[in-house]
């Protein structure tokens, strides 16, 4: 019998280094689309204060809550009152009258946050040294503003629709439900687009956030006051009310939901309301583009 040395154990696992430190990158790249997505994601986080200290969350979150409070109240009320007596509840179109202050406050907060800060902090120079060019940068910012405004324009009525449906007080039948859903979607887009466009145009004119916010919060209700005075006291033609950027989207929302109303623009033909809407969008877009086209960027 011979004594043989025991065979060395088979290595069960090879040693690995997991943290290799900085090295060259050989993976795939996302292209310009990835740059726009990253810009939108970063802008949403910035506006909502995500990843920032608590003080950056103090303003946006209460405003979002303000926009949802009437919806929550309506849902609670609808659950408490007897079926068939809910006619006094506001319609989907009328809902926007309850939250108009929250909507334009949110626009006044978000738009300057996303445009003015980039110019003040040198981020615009960093963005333009990336695959983003000025049109794509502005497109990304407009998308971000639109998505943020949809939180307050789409969220509450959609919540109401879903809650009413679950309470058996929603639209009758699937077809009717889809119609209401699409109307809510279109209404939210209209309200978000016009407040967002005006907010961005004003924010494109200054790099001071406070100035931009104050201007937005003055111009939107100011347009209602000035047009009202000009038409009612100044004897100017009622068509001038189309310049009332505060109530124009509300009037359009009533038309989208096929309802009468939409004071004080309720008497204007629908086509004039749409013309005014696209006019505001075109004016704002042109203003933003000319503000940024020749802007000297800090580098």
């Amino acid at each position, binding site marked *: 019998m011979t004594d043989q040395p025991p065979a060395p154990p088979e290595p069960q696992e090879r040693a690995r280094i997991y943290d290799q430190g900085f090295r*060259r990158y050989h993976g795939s790249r996302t292209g310009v689309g990835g740059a726009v997505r*990253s810009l939108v994601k970063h802008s949403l986080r910035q506006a909502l204060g995500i990843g920032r*200290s608590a003080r950056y969350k103090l303003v946006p979150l209460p405003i979002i809550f303000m926009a949802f409070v009437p919806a929550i109240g309506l849902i609670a009320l609808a659950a408490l009152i007897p079926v068939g007596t809910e006619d006094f509840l506001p319609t989907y179109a009328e809902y926007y009258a309850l939250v108009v202050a929250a909507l334009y406050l949110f626009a006044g907060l978000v738009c300057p946050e996303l445009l003015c800060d980039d110019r003040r902090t040198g981020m615009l120079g*960093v963005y333009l040294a990336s695959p*983003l060019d000025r049109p794509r940068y502005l497109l990304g910012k407009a998308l971000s503003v639109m998505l943020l405004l949809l939180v307050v324009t789409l969220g509450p009525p959609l919540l109401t629709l879903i809650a009413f449906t679950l309470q058996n007080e929603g639209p009758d039948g699937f077809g009717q439900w889809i119609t209401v859903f699409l109307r809510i979607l279109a209404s939210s887009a209209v309200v978000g687009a016009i407040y967002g466009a005006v907010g961005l145009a004003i924010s494109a004119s200054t790099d001071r956030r406070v100035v931009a916010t104050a201007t937005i919060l003055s111009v939107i209700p100011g347009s209602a006051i000035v047009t009202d005075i000009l038409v009612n006291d100044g004897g100017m033609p009622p068509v001038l009310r189309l310049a009332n950027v505060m109530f124009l989207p509300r009037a359009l929302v009533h038309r989208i939901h096929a309802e009468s109303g939409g004071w004080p623009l309720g008497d204007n033909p629908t086509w004039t309301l749409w013309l005014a809407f696209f006019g505001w969008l075109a004016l704002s877009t042109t203003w933003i583009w000319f503000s940024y086209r020749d802007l000297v960027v800090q580098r």
Partner: protein
Amino acid sequence: MPDPTPTAQRPRTNGTDESGGSLVRAESLVKRYGSVPVLDDVTFTISEGITGLLGANGAGKTTVLGLILGLHRPNGGRLEVLGRDPWHAGPEVRARVGYAPEHHTLPPDLRAAEFVRHVAELHGIPPEDAKTRSSDALWLVELGEERFRPMGTMSTGQRQRVKLAQAIAHDPEFVLLDEPTDGLDPTQREVMLELIRSLHRDFGMNIVLSSHLIDEVERVCDRVVIIGGGRTMAEGTVAELRGTAAETVTAEIDADADRMAALVAALRASGLTVRVDGRRLVLSVDHDESDAAIKATLDELRDRCLDHDLGVIRLGRRRLSLEDVFLEHLR
């Protein structure tokens, strides 16, 4: 639209692609802002390695960087970056270039790691990879422990390093650094220059270093492009720019203007290259830099001074620096 082409399969600037081995090629470049000319007939080539873009403040260095990034349209001339016209292919060019701006203002409430990650994503790195690379880049610039600090709480030196990290996180084909040592104390400056050297040495990164500080360009760069008065004043390796006159003999002579002129004429007649700076003469020595060449120059100077009965106040030898070359071109 995702671009699934791995970096390794992309055309690299290794001398085999359409750019003929150069990263940047500028020919007779002209740039005006309104009626104010900033660049007028600038011609240079930037190849692999570390290239210094040297010029006084306001010489147009940042404008050159802006043109390379495709942010300005040249008013004349031709510019190719990685084989493309940056004005027409700006996004494609910028995706392959890293840029650290000169200004120190960065979003104060944003954490360094988030900022670097965001810039990496902007340059096409997918989010998960961007997170890892942001962390790795910040560790590389020695900010690993500080990476979750808001940038507003960082010192100038730390912010300069954050800017360097965001410029390299997406693994660009070359990096443009605009005054990367601006605002740094001597120790921080040394650390930054060593970081820049290590990026090329350890990772093969090509770097364009824009600076008005001659000594740091001389210490770090393989090649130099000197810009002044809107033109390219000189271009080449530091050795090439020093030319055949790598060393000089300087002499301070006790003479009036007429006798100094006679002495200079005599020295030039003997085949020496002489520059006059007041009562100081700077004599270039041939590139062999041997003691024999120095001795021959000193002997010649002594003999000609004796011929003209002139006294020598001070005599010395000095190695020609990039500063001498720069000042010579400014004259």
